[in-house]
């Protein structure tokens, strides 16, 4: 079995040797964005040094090189998620834009008043707000599957909520707050039996787990490059080809047309129909290098490493009696992230004190306010892990968390 060596991997990430406030940087905010390996950083500079030209236009060799790199990324990312055809993979700015594209180009066209969209209590605002906007415009009803006490989805409730009016199930593959994994195969199979389509928000799951859109039989999958070692400003939307063919354009402009007159416009074929204007071609080209890096490690090995780190982090966190841990607390049921709170000190204060010790975690509502309501808290602290995080990083987290009490004068050892 292929095993990751995070100590070796760290050497590829220059930012991890930075110090913050005189302390080594312990980066535990990977659910927000991941750091970039040297190969990605170098490829981005190299692209501008050697290959920059606008794509899909020039007939000269430089433009062809740039176009080839852009389209090779499309094929590579398609293979990464085991998509049958790369033509149904669209590049956007981010996961949010990918979901908005589905809301605009598919749901607005096919859903009508009285139809329902089924969400879950685990969703990020990116998978709530586009549907809210559409629901107000079209008279569509939004419903949300609750979570059980262990923060996993209540699948009994899911089945009850899945009425014939539900035309779309929009569900995260992995909660950005709790790390909770969702049973996608079960959800998709059950939804399809009900003739509902399924959109998976893969912003968290695709970087952390093997993803196979063919086996999953998912209809729409959205994710972002920057959460999987790639550059910022690149989102992906994969859509089943037979669905993509029926969808309306998203943004209008150059690149997405076939013929234009003021009387009639015909659209380019997918995916170009959905990629208006000059895309973020440099970052897309470089995204391929990030995918190569992950493929070399193997996504099974990535998942195994995270299980190990999670297991260790959960056990060390449970030593701290002043902290409450949220979520499944089980590496089999979660990945990547752990949320917790001090019993009396606000997450913001915890985050600031940890930051001064070089430990970077996220605090706040994590763009998941409905989930915060479910948890009954205004905010949580979240540590999220990736391939370069070590047990020593977890130890630094625990040491810093212990210091919070001292700063607040809750122990006698304050000097």
């Amino acid at each position, binding site marked *: 079995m292929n095993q990751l060596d995070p100590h070796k991997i760290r050497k590829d990430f220059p930012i991890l040797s930075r*110090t*913050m*406030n*005189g*302390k080594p940087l312990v980066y535990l905010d990977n659910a927000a964005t991941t750091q970039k390996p040297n190969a990605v950083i170098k490829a981005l500079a190299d692209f501008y040094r050697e290959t920059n030209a606008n794509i899909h236009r020039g007939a000269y060799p430089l433009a062809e090189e740039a176009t080839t790199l852009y389209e090779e990324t499309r094929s590579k990312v398609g293979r990464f998620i085991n998509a049958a055809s790369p033509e149904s993979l669209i590049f956007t700015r981010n996961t949010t834009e990918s979901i908005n594209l589905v809301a605009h180009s598919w749901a607005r066209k096919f859903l009508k008043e009285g139809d329902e969209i089924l969400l879950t209590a685990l969703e990020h605002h990116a998978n709530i707000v586009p549907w809210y906007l559409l629901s107000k415009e079209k008279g569509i009803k939004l419903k949300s599957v609750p979570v059980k006490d262990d923060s996993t989805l209540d699948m009994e409730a899911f089945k009850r909520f899945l009425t014939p009016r539900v035309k779309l199930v929009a569900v995260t593959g992995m909660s950005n707050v709790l790390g909770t994994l969702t049973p996608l195969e079960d959800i998709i199979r059950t939804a399809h039996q009900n003739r509902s389509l399924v959109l998976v928000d893969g912003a968290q799951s695709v970087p952390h787990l093997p993803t196979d859109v063919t086996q999953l039989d998912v209809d729409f999958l959205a994710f972002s490059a920057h959460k999987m070692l790639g550059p910022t400003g690149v989102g992906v939307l994969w859509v089943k080809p037979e669905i993509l063919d029926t969808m309306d354009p998203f943004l209008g402009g150059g690149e997405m047309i076939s013929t234009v007159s003021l009387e009639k416009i015909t659209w380019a074929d997918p995916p170009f129909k959905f990629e208006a204007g000059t895309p973020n071609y440099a970052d897309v080209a470089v995204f391929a290098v990030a995918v190569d890096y992950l493929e070399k490690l193997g996504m099974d090995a990535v998942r195994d490493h995270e299980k190990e780190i999670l297991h260790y982090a959960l056990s060390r966190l449970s030593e701290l009696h002043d902290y409450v841990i949220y979520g499944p607390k089980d590496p089999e049921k979660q990945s990547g992230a752990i949320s917790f709170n001090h019993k009396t*000190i*606000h*997450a*913001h*204060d915890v985050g*600031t*004190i940890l930051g*001064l*010790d070089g430990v970077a975690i996220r*605090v*706040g*509502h994590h763009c998941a*306010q409905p989930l*915060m309501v479910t948890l009954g808290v*205004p*905010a949580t602290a979240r540590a999220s892990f990736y391939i370069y995080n070590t047990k020593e990083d977890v130890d630094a987290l625990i040491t810093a968390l212990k*210091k919070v009490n*001292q*700063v*607040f*004068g809750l122990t006698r050892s304050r*000097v």
Partner: protein
Amino acid sequence: MIPLPADNPKAATEGGLFGGADELYREVILDHFKSPRNRGSLTGANAKAEGTNPFCGDRITITALIQKDVLKDVTFEGHGCAISQASASMMTSMVKGKTLKEATALTSFIKKIFGVENASLTSNGAKPALTMDTIGDFQALEGVKKYPVRIKCALLSWNTLLQCLEEFKKT
């Protein structure tokens, strides 16, 4: 300009055991956080406003009793971090007994401390300019300046007070 802690290599040694955290969380701040003044809902209040910090979802409600242009009593409710709670505790203590005009001028002064309002530190009108010496305990919160994302926490109660006074003027 005060360097950000992350860019200040001396900060670790200067901050001693707590890496600078004890510079931010001074005793007086922790005291207001642990024993907040004027916390609760005011019976007979005639002005009220709710403020939120969208960065963290914190909420605060200010209730006030205003008579003849004077803030006779002010209280706060809600939850939040030590910075926002201490700031609210200090704010209510500081504005109690002040005229609406004085309370507004004080709020402007506090916002200027954090660089949120750019005008010079002299207050308008004939009153003498507010200075750091006149704000008592609140001086301890000046350290928040080094933490730009936390300034909103320190100002939440002050901005909510302004809303509260606006609401009152409308009635």
